[in-house]
């Protein structure tokens, strides 16, 4: 299965979830399959799982979906232990594993040797709902279950290499942040962006 067709298969399952996507195909394809201000792109390789954890802990009633990659998860494998420690019930962590650094030229990652079982690692950190999926049908079932049961959930989706050519990302990092934060403000009734006061306005 390919990442793009996986995304198209699961996209109709979502409603008001927040999405944190790792740099590369996970971001470009997801923002093309499901364009939304609820999508947050990540530029620091490995950090999407940690950003998703922080978001999930800050908004415990709101489901957060992290879309990681195999190279990215390898780089921040410790984040699984931290997720296992904090047990965010609203976090769904999907790792798209194409066994390569596709966005960086296609060199093999640790999963290419087929010794590394991400689902077993996740389960070992205390993420009891950890799954390996090989077909689109199983992926859809797994994500549907994850949306209906308390997490944290980890879904290791083994995909074929290859990415869909998409248009340029619609916005840069700062615009992405402002749109995402405004979306949170509107949907959660929060004020997050505060403008500093001028000296004459200070009390």
């Amino acid at each position: 299965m390919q990442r793009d067709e996986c995304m198209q298969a699961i996209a109709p399952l979502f409603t008001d979830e927040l999405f944190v996507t790792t740099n590369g195909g996970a971001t470009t394809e997801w923002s093309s399959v499901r364009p939304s201000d609820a999508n947050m792109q990540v530029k620091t390789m490995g950090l999407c799982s940690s950003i998703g954890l922080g978001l999930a802990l800050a908004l415990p009633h709101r489901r957060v979906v992290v879309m990681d990659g195999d190279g990215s998860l390898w780089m921040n494998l410790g984040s699984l232990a931290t997720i296992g420690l904090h047990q965010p019930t609203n976090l769904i962590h999907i790792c798209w594993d194409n066994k390569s650094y596709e966005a960086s030229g296609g060199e093999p990652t640790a999963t290419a040797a087929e010794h590394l079982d991400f689902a077993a690692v996740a389960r070992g950190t205390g993420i009891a709902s950890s799954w390996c999926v090989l077909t689109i049908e199983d992926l859809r079932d797994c994500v549907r279950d994850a949306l209906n049961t308390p997490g944290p959930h980890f879904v290791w989706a083994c995909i074929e290499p290859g990415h869909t050519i998409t248009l340029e990302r619609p916005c840069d990092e700062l615009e992405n942040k402002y749109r995402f934060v405004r979306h949170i403000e509107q949907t959660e009734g929060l004020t997050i962006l505060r403008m500093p006061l001028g000296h004459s306005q200070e009390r």
Partner: protein
Amino acid sequence: MASVPDINLLELITQLADDEDIQHVPVGREEEGVGVCAGAYLGGKRPALLMQNAGLMNSCNGLTTTGLQFGIPILLLVYYAGDMGDNAFHMLGLVTEQVLQGLGIKYAVGRNPSDVKKQIADAMSICQAAKRPVALLLTRDVL
């Protein structure tokens, strides 16, 4: 407040656990803490990361490509190991301020216990106004 411990931060971390107004999130590596803080900010919190300056070194890419690139306010409360009179991590002390300067992260040094409360409030305030990470280096004298 995300944190990675240091023996000099022990008392502060113990107090964090008892403070109901602060959600304490221990992490395994400091750069994870940058991510957790960024996510917390996006979710409406005012995040801070408590760590030693060795952890500041571990966090440089996250601070650059998440903190600075997306404009995320994160208060960095950093134990300043290797400051004058603190010899255990002398090499870290030699490079800490230059690293912050190189990253373009505004910082202050807390050396006087009677000033540090205002310094923390001021650092949080400028951090939120500038929407960037800001650091306060905490010496053993104030910890």
